[in-house]
């Protein structure tokens, strides 16, 4: 799980162009939206694309994303349980 969390942080930094952010600077349980990383709605769409492209997970219900993208740890746990690649 810790390896997946680190990989996920690296992917998010790359995909969302978080220039001044390092994996160590993202707390596993910090909120991704609002406070924490302060991501926006376009970032949420990029995360949905990342989930499908990198891990083979299709999110059909946008409301589902709201729960999954609570924090890096929650996201990693969901990926671990549902990934197809």
């Amino acid at each position, binding site marked *: 799980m810790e390896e997946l969390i680190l990989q996920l942080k690296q992917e998010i930094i790359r995909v969302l*162009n978080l*220039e001044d952010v390092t994996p160590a600077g993202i707390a596993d349980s910090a909120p991704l939206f609002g406070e924490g990383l302060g991501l926006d709605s376009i*970032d949420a*769409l*990029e995360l949905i*694309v990342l989930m499908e*492209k990198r891990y083979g997970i299709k999110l059909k219900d946008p409301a589902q994303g709201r729960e999954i993208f609570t924090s890096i740890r929650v996201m990693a746990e969901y990926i671990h349980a549902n990934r197809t690649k």
Partner: protein
Amino acid sequence: MPQVIRKYCHVTHRSATVNGKAFPVAEVDGEGKFLTALYRSLKIDYPKFFKMDSLSKLGFLASELILRDEEPRFAPREDVAILCFNRSASLATDALYQVTIRRGDGCYPSPSLFVYTLPNIVTGEIAIRNKFFGETSFYVCKEWDVQQALRMAGQILCDGRTRAVLAAWVECFEEACEAFMMLVDTENQPGIPPEEIAFSTSKKTTWKN
């Protein structure tokens, strides 16, 4: 009173000037990294910059160079308009977006690229950053014509609300990327004579990015 140029700036792949004088930029970390170096030199804390496409980065940085000494900064204003021109619209980002659609390993259209597939997004980025609620417009034309830009700025300044116009050429396609921006108003006579400004789009600026 006629509209006049109060201030102007020019940004290319390797230099930035304000009113013809070089703006010092810290060490550039690799080819194609000048805009990031300029961002750092301006000491801006605006992470959204890194999510912008090159066209918006250019326009954004030009506006920062022009407005950095203006007071008050970031107070909501309805009396500032933004008027931009370029030759290639958002074609560079359109092409990048198309690649995400037709990629061989699956079709994953990029939402963050899609939002920049309109050239007038740059006017929105500048307006959001500065809390400008005035008129914004973007025109696609072959060349920059300072007299035409001044005339159009003058028309906007006649609306009874607008007191200043940011008028700019912001172009980024293939190897031609540069921004020229001027702050136009009617209150700072006599202003900078347009004939003293050496900027033309007829000579292509090359940029290996």
